[in-house]
């Protein structure tokens, strides 16, 4: 059995992005760290079967779509031959390279990494179950970083043909007919991947629009795009029954406009995630959960049990990898006695579809909910030279600013490279920049980053590439 210390200063449960970020920070602050993960490989859902492999596949999707549509610009390609197993190997290779890097970093820093299932025995001890036995470790502090898992449809467990996002990323085959349940970012990203590989994709969503958390004007160009890429999109449609047969899945729908097709080769269920807080024996501690099973934490990410912290998906929030990483640092610093707190003002969110959507800080929806007056300025990308050359004329850059002070409060972007552009918005908001700061920072021409600069100029009513009257408030 693995060499287990009987005492550790910081016990981290979970080897995902939150867990390793917390571990590295804690050890850099001079603490003795033991990280326990059920999985032998570090990286968690994000690296092993989430963010990273999905981005690898989306890169392929973009390549396929771009070459297919190049004919509009006078370049004709033969339809590609797709070697699925080679594609899978490439994707796995990317993941493996990152896992190796992480493992080396953990080793170099001196983190004790153990592969075991950890459960609490008290507020100071945890039981570790290994393949070949069990052990107990005492800790001064613990950080719960166990993440979340996909929610299945009621009475419909995941199966061979009824996949969760992880199974869909395994790319078992390219199904001819794929049903995606859920119009959030996972459904849209995976739909884009499979549609580009040749599947006929049907997407159903319970709500009246896609990507509920993003502003409608940002979703619109994406909605148009997927409408042509996918076979069919049905909003306000619920799935009432799913039956998995040997060679297909039969689905029943409910709604005003249900899909005519009811037989699919595979179904991807992407309706949300639930916290992994139920198998930790938290009843042995003073840790409390909220009604949805998320661990309750304060601004230091400390739970209701003084010795125990929780970070990442298991503690709720936006369930984003970079959120978990940041929280990991906060928790470890707080444990070390530093004045750390989670005080993020602009948490970026990115959807890697074609076009990409990204936003940070305040959204129009959230401003409305909070009854907060904001000035909204939109800069359409059809006025950007670079956007046109990129074939991204449908893009949009949007600024939400304080009507009095001109402070930048929120940034929303739809279009190519939104994932990179949003960083400027994050920096501006965190630094308390005003519109004029952004307007007077020179953007390289021609770039799509110019659209932020253009939007800021438009907000000051001195637009360059659009007519002043088109400034919307």
């Amino acid at each position, binding site marked *: 059995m693995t060499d287990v210390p009987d005492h550790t200063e910081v016990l981290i449960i979970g080897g995902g992005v939150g867990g390793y970020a917390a571990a590295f920070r804690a050890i850099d602050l001079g603490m003795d760290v033991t990280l326990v993960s059920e999985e032998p490989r570090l990286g968690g859902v994000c690296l092993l079967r989430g963010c990273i492999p999905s981005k690898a596949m989306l890169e392929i999707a973009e390549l396929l779509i771009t070459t297919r549509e190049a004919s509009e610009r006078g370049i004709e390609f033969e339809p590609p031959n797709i070697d699925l197993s080679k594609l899978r190997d490439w994707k796995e290779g990317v993941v493996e390279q990152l896992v190796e890097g992480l493992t080396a970093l953990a080793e170099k820093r001196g983190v004790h990494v153990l592969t075991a299932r950890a459960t609490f025995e008290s507020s100071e001890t945890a039981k570790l179950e290994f393949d070949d036995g069990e052990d107990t470790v005492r800790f001064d502090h613990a950080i719960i970083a166990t993440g979340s898992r996909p929610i299945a449809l009621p009475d419909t467990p995941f199966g061979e043909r009824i996949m969760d996002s992880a199974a869909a990323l395994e790319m078992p085959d390219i199904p001819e007919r794929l049903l995606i349940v859920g119009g959030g970012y996972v459904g849209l990203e995976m739909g884009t991947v499979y549609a580009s590989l040749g599947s006929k994709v049907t997407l159903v969503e319970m709500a009246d629009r896609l990507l509920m958390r993003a502003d409608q004007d940002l979703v619109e160009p994406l909605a148009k795009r997927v409408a042509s890429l996918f076979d069919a999109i049905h909003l306000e449609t619920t799935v009432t029954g799913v039956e998995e047969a040997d060679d297909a899945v039969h689905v029943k729908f409910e709604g005003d406009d249900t899909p005519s097709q009811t037989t699919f080769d595979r179904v991807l269920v992407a309706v949300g995630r639930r916290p992994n807080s139920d198998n930790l024996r938290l009843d042995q501690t003073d840790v409390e959960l909220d009604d949805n099973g998320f661990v309750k934490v304060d601004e230091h990410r400390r739970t209701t049990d003084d010795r125990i912290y929780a970070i990442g998906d298991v503690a709720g929030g936006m369930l984003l990898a970079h959120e978990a990483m940041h929280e990991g640092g906060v928790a470890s610093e707080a444990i070390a006695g530093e004045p750390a707190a989670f005080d993020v003002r602009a948490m970026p969110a990115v959807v890697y579809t074609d076009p990409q959507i990204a936003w940070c800080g305040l959204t129009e929806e959230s401003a409305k909910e909070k009854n907060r007056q904001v000035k909204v300025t939109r800069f359409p990308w059809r006025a950007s030279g670079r956007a046109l050359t990129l074939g991204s004329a449908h893009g949009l850059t949007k600024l939400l600013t304080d009507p009095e002070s001109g402070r930048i409060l929120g940034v929303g972007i739809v279009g190519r490279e939104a994932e990179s552009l949003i960083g400027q918005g994050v920096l501006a908001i965190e*630094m308390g920049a005003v519109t004029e700061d952004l307007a007077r920072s020179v953007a390289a021409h021609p770039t799509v980053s110019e659209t932020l600069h253009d939007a800021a100029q438009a907000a000051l009513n001195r637009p360059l590439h659009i007519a002043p009257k088109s400034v919307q408030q």
Partner: protein
Amino acid sequence: MMPRELKFQDPGEGIHEGEIADVLVSEGDEVQEGDDLLVVETDKATTELPSTYSGKIEKIHVRAGDVVEVGDLLVTFASGAGEEAQEEEAQDEEKSGGGKAAAVGELPGLEEFEEQETKSGRNAKADAKADRQKEKPNRKQPKASERPIPASPATRRLARELGIDLREVEPSGPHGRVIDDDVRQAAEEQPADKEETKSKKKKKKKEKGAPAEAAEPKAREKQGRERPELPDFERWGSVERQPLRGIRRQTARRMSLSWQEIPHVTHHDWIDVTDLERWRREHALQIEEQGGQLSLMVLVIKALAGLLRRYPRFNASFDPASQELILKQYYHLGVAVDTEDGLVVGVLRNVDREPVAQVARSVTELVERVRNREVESEELRGSTFTVSNVGPLGGDAFEPLVNYPEVAILGMGRARLQQVVGGDLDSPTTEVRYMLPLSLSYDHRVNDGADAARFLRDLGQALRDPETMLLNI
């Protein structure tokens, strides 16, 4: 208008604290300026504190036995409107409100960013805090429209570190931004009593034992962390960096703690153990048959057990928070064991009750178990006095560090034959004796040089005459 209150002031002799010996008045009493209110005992004198106001006593903030520091609030007088006093109370409550943050301070610099999606379970607290902020009556510069207060992440961290609420800072940065200088200035302007009361509250919280003891040394360690950066050693040649792990890391931390917390003094002496050594050799075989090794250390340990009963202040701990000595009525001797991974202090329990053969067996067994890493961490706790024997490796005088939170440690060097000069000035004689060098390091807050000299003298006496010693104990 300043609230009418009496604070503890330096009586003029550079005194920082005093103990309330008696409270001469009650809340609600009418007093005249000059009436004595409290009796305070400092280490120099006992003094009556006269009232600085005439009027009714609204609140007495101290009780007999409390230790007060300069600047601490002692008594509040009812004012005309009676408002100020209440306001003070309200603020006090607020300060102690976030009871959980003791380990990392109260972090008033943290601002809830209402626009940010807050995590579950945090909302109630955030709202409550925001409400209190709104109610706060005499805010210097209310910035009604600005939320969140514009300040960079680094400035926000500084505010948390200095305990400054960004809402109460006058911004001097461009476009209303709070900058580092503003925060530093606010910290300097913070009324002394606010600072003092706060630090005292924190202290009190710790006394109550919450949060977990583990958090305390870390907070303390934090103070020591402000150390100068190391130079880039690679400028002068190649280096290898090795992470400190396990025992090494623990030792580094515990020794820093001991060095920082304990004012050390070491007393050295040579003890004549000629007869003891003869006695030891005579009985070694017999003890060995019983499974123990009769080393000099065993005999020293046995002698110490008897001696510590007579010197309770060497078998103690010091509680600086309550200014109390904790005298232990049990005698558990720590034995420093050199293992492959570093130094581990094993514990021999109740050595005073064990016959010498048993102690010999226990030491032999303990050393073996520690070296084989068979001891549980709980077994390594609770020692009251430690012995470190470097004799087998050579050397005479050294200066061992006290094993915190004990108050003394005995170092044993290598016993050897030495020429000892006796007789008197006029007729000196020389004799070859077997001499043992001993080094007693002690906490000078608890014991003085004379105590240490007596302690070692009596230890020497006991060791000189093994028969009597072993009979007596």
